[in-house]
């Protein structure tokens, strides 16, 4: 299959065409309020008191969001130009984003007449940039230009038997076409890591998968806690999942059957096309920002929702620059939230569609949304702040 996308100077292809204004703050917020077509990122952490590793991770996330193909151009503003941590200096962020070939503008309150001067210049710049972006037309490209990320959540047993396999079918199709697909949630491969390791492209990658799970399991054991009080989470148990292993074995279906090319860190860009495992954390306000910073131009949330219709969860999407799709295989969840759900695969459980028919329908929906059809989450003007995955302590 193919889709209509925005071809960027570095050859990557966007499914959307935003002007990104970062980082968060009064300057970005005011510009975004005034200029349609802009997009800001809500994040509560700017790196103060963070370790060098974690500051680099924040920088990787901001640079990655700026370089995402759904972004036509970027306005950066300096909170404290020339000072602050070297990793997060605006000059550095601007330079690395610009390496992708797109236009990057920097606002500097010290030169632009303070906060309000920077806002004023920023609004003028943003108006020009959204106009310029609007001139670009979509072009027909192959599915090799799809780059997707997935998480499964509020998982119940419909996730393992129909929802995640539908994602797996889609993932296989995208990888087969030469595209890129990412999955992760390291805690939720514990008990299934040996199955994934068998699918690694070589022994090093297999070992890296096993090591990710072992390290996460060691962290869990070091707490002295019974993991069952943490994960599976209460909604999983209410949906019929009895152990972390059962959850993991159902969860890995969403990765399909392609060989795993490598293990990536949070917000790390895949070096090549194909299927990648990302060593990350399940929280949906965390994981999707990481995928999008890694280059995902579309992301998927496969929802179980059994017993908990998840209405409130479904109203908010993470503050990211990629269309965010909701999928479910649970008939009760779908009935409760049809206005929010983009794709339903419970037809396989009901016997009205084969897994292949359901998978093909999913693929068509994904390429439609990649081409500009709105994801249901895009019909609501509300986003939640992102929660960056930073593992080291703050001081």
């Amino acid at each position, binding site marked *: 299959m193919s889709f209509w996308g925005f071809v960027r100077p570095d050859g990557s292809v966007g499914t959307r065409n935003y002007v990104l204004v970062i980082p968060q703050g009064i300057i970005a917020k005011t510009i975004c309020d005034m200029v349609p077509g802009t997009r800001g990122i809500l994040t509560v952490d700017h790196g103060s008191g963070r370790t060098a590793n974690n500051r680099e991770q924040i920088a990787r996330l901001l640079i990655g969001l700026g370089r995402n193909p759904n972004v036509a151009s970027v306005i950066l503003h300096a909170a404290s130009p020339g000072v602050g941590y070297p990793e997060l200096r605006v000059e550095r962020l601007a330079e690395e984003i610009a390496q992708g070939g797109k236009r990057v503008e920097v606002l500097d309150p010290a030169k632009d007449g303070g906060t309000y001067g920077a806002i004023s210049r920023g609004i003028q710049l943003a108006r020009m940039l959204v106009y310029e972006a609007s001139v670009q037309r979509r072009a027909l490209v192959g599915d090799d230009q799809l780059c997707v990320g997935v998480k499964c959540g509020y998982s119940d*047993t419909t996730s*393992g038997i129909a929802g995640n396999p539908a994602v797996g079918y889609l993932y296989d199709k995208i990888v087969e076409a030469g595209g890129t697909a990412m999955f992760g949630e390291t805690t939720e491969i514990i*008990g299934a890591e040996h199955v994934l390791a068998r699918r690694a492209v070589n022994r090093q990658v297999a070992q890296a998968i096993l090591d990710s799970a072992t390290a996460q399991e060691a962290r869990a054991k070091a707490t002295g806690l019974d993991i069952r009080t943490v994960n599976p989470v209460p909604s999983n148990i209410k949906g*019929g999942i*009895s*152990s972390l*292993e059962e959850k993991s074995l159902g969860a890995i279906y969403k990765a399909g059957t392609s060989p795993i090319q490598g293990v990536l860190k949070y917000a790390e860009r895949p070096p090549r096309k194909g299927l990648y495992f990302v060593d990350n954390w399940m929280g949906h306000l965390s994981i999707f920002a990481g995928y999008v910073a890694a280059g995902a131009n579309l992301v998927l949330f496969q929802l179980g929702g059994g017993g908990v219709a998840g209405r409130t969860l479904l109203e908010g999407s993470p503050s990211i620059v990629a269309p965010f799709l909701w999928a479910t295989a649970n008939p009760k969840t779908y009935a409760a939230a049809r206005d929010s759900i983009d794709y339903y695969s419970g037809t396989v459980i009901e016997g009205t569609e084969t897994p292949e028919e359901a998978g093909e329908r999913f693929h068509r929906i994904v390429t439609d949304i990649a081409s500009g059809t709105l994801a249901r989450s895009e019909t609501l003007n509300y986003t939640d702040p992102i929660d960056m995955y930073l593992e080291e302590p703050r001081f």
Partner: protein
Amino acid sequence: MPAKRALIMQPNDNVATALEEIQVGDDVAAALGKESRSLRAAEAIPFGFKVALQDIPQGELIRKYGEVIGRASTAIARGTMVHIHNLEGTRARGDLERRARA
């Protein structure tokens, strides 16, 4: 009344997943590909929950997806529900580790 539907993921699984609400005494047809195994529900099994396909002694491994999902914390009779009351996960268990150290 037609048998209630359940699904077996892999041939060596000893549990099946209920695809509809199963009541006590219902006949259950557990499908594995084109084959089907029948059993009688010894208790109610809600949609999405697991039913034992055979008697599972205490301590025995429980398999779904062809893989181990935990072990039986008590003896489990064929046709009864398998969930947190009788299945115990064994991975990432800090409490077991702590007990072993004590």
